[in-house]
């Protein structure tokens, strides 16, 4: 049963990718895309419900990754629904030809496969390959519009991403070397399940070096400052569903990898604590992104920078460690990907109805497009960490638990959150309020995905199911 589900999670996207690459017609492919994503999501749910499959040399299902699998399959599903209406508009406006559309759908499913593989991998090398694959597919999708800006963004993403991936590979090799001395040669020396137990005996010097490379390597994917440069442009120039997937899922996957290695690190007494490194990188990202928000003209780039900010917050939280901060970090990861992808859904429709991504040309949305406008307001309110939405809880926990231990860090974090809020609000005033101008044709978008995401975030802000909490706390303890 669970093995079947496991297989489905990996094979359904793969098969769908092949099928979509082959099929010519646009309408059905969009639906097929949705259907495939939905099946994957169901498989993930059954995996959650059913007993854990046995841990193999290559695949593993444990407490840490199951939530990310469910989350990413869910967001992938909602995004595919959004992508349907989005792509329809793109075809009409002629920005995409049906050839590229086939390519797009195939790549979408490939990306899903790659991410699920990265999450499920029990083998360092396998995970590395999966992340590499995910990078390449997203590179291709970012470049899909083939405008100069898009190509440049893709090129930048590709170069930086590959350098990052190269560093990560070196780190992986070092980890293997460290493990080999204890575990012995062979696949075991690259399996998470083994590493975490044996980590105590590894050579700390080697581990330190390895973690440094892994942090920088996968950190490039996470978009931590100063490795973030690819992120804003990739978000701004690619199709909006891809922006949503990038912010909502791919960043999480990379961060997930770092978490895996962090747990190995912290299992080794001799190794340097990964905390300070992550804290400083995270804080740098938050501060930097907060200021970068102010001068943005492009609405998608704006929220891309806000993604950098939130990845910084999460990294900071995990760096601080402790049950509270880890719990908050995990919750923040989940809620952020829900919120941010919902925001990108809204933004995609807004850009389509207004025919531009330049914020100065978008005004008074709550007047011209009430649903989209208020959706955006809700999104900004959520992402700014205001109640009743969930991110307030996590930011509350992070700041309070930090202030008791590191007052200075907490103040820096809080103030930069405030600065970021200032920037987002200033933008929101222009976008959502005041007199409307520009085209005011009603958008034929389906608001189901947006509604679903915001509903989840809202509920999470008010009430978390005890089972989820207990499980989160368990993982939090696992991480520290």
């Amino acid at each position, binding site marked *: 049963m669970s093995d079947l589900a496991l297989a489905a999670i990996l094979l359904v996207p793969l098969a769908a990718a092949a099928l979509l690459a082959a099929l010519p017609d646009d309408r059905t492919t969009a639906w097929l895309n949705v259907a495939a994503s939905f099946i994957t999501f169901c498989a993930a749910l059954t995996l959650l419900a059913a007993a854990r499959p046995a841990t193999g040399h290559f695949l593993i299902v444990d407490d840490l990754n199951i939530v990310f699998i469910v989350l990413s399959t869910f967001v992938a599903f909602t995004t595919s629904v959004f992508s349907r209406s989005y792509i329809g508009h793109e075809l009409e406006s002629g920005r995409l030809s049906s050839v590229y559309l086939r390519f797009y759908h195939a790549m979408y499913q490939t990306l899903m496969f790659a991410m699920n593989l990265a999450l499920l991998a029990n*083998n360092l*090398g*396998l995970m*590395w*390959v999966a992340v*590499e*694959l995910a990078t*390449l597919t997203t*590179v*291709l999708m970012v*470049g899909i519009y*083939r*405008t*100069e*800006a898009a*190509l*440049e963004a*893709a*090129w930048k993403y*590709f*170069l930086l991403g*590959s*350098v990052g991936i*190269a*560093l990560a*590979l*070196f780190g992986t*090799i*070092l980890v*293997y*070397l*460290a493990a*080999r*001395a204890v575990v012995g*040669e*062979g*696949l075991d*020396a*690259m399996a998470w399940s083994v590493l975490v137990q044996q980590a105590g005996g590894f*050579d700390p*010097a*080697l581990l330190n*070096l390895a973690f440094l490379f892994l942090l920088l390597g996968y950190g490039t994917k996470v978009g931590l400052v100063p490795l973030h440069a690819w992120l804003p*442009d990739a978000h*701004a*120039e690619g199709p909006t569903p891809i922006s949503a997937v990038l912010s909502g899922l791919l960043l999480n996957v990379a961060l997930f990898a770092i978490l895996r290695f962090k747990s190995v690190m912290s299992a080794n007494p001799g190794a340097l604590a990964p905390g300070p490194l992550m804290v400083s990188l995270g804080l740098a990202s938050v501060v930097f992104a907060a200021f970068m928000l102010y*001068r*943005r*003209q*492009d609405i998608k*780039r704006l929220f891309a920078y806000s993604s950098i900010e939130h990845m910084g917050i999460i990294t900071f939280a995990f760096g601080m460690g402790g049950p509270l901060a880890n719990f908050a970090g995990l919750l923040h990861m989940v809620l952020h990907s829900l919120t941010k992808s919902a925001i990108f859904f809204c933004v995609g429709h807004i850009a389509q109805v207004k025919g531009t*991504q*330049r914020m100065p040309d978008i005004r008074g949305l709550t007047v011209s497009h009430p649903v989209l406008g208020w959706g955006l307001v809700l999104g900004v309110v959520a992402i700014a960490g205001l109640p009743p939405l969930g991110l307030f809880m996590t930011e509350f926990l992070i700041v309070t638990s930090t202030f008791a231990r590191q007052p200075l860090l907490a103040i820096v974090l809080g103030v930069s959150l405030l600065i970021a809020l200032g920037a987002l609000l200033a933008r929101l005033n222009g976008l959502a309020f005041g007199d409307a101008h520009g085209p005011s044709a009603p958008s034929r978008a389906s608001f189901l995905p947006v509604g679903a995401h915001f509903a989840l975030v809202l509920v999470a802000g008010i009430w978390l199911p005890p089972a989820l909490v207990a499980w989160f706390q368990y993982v939090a303890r696992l991480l520290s």
Partner: protein
Amino acid sequence: MIDRLALDIAHLCAGGLVLVSFMLLYQDRLTGLINTFALHAIVVSFSVAWQAYIQHAPQLYITAGIALGVKAIVIPLALHRIIVRLGIHRSIEPVVSIGQTMLAGIGLVALAVMVMLPVTAQAGTLAREDLAFALSVILLGLLMMISRRNAVSQVIGFMSIENGLILAATGAKGMPLVVEISVAFSILIALIVIGVFLFRIRERFETVDIHLLHEHRGEQP
């Protein structure tokens, strides 16, 4: 006794690779650069083959073969055609002067060695020194990428990084999936770099000089 010799030879290859990386840094013409990179690839493939021999790991021969085939022959040829077609085979202007680049490179090698020193002998002297060399190759490749302004030379820099990685991977005795990783790495990069990007970029700009791309952005500075 034979082991001693085997180690020395492996060691020699690794050192040779670092040397070739320096040669890469030294080049200031694309044609020369490409040829030197071919040499780089040859050295890597030889050292991989040697590792395959002393570790009795036949699958590594595949890696060596790929390195030789793809990176020593196919890609250099392709690059030659490209630069000729793009008409940029005259010369490339390094942003930083060669001399400074060299100095920086030496500094990087020193850094690599310093970082690797504390690694305990538990990992094996060979591994340690191999790692030091591999790290130097990687850093030198990065240095190359940032000291050149031209897309082709950046791609070459990146591929030299990858060579360093393969050196490290093969040096790590008994590491699984090395072949798969190397295959994935080289094939994908080769395809992407040459196939998709250079052509698309050329199709638009008639040049691969990246800094021209920076006119186009959604933002006003």
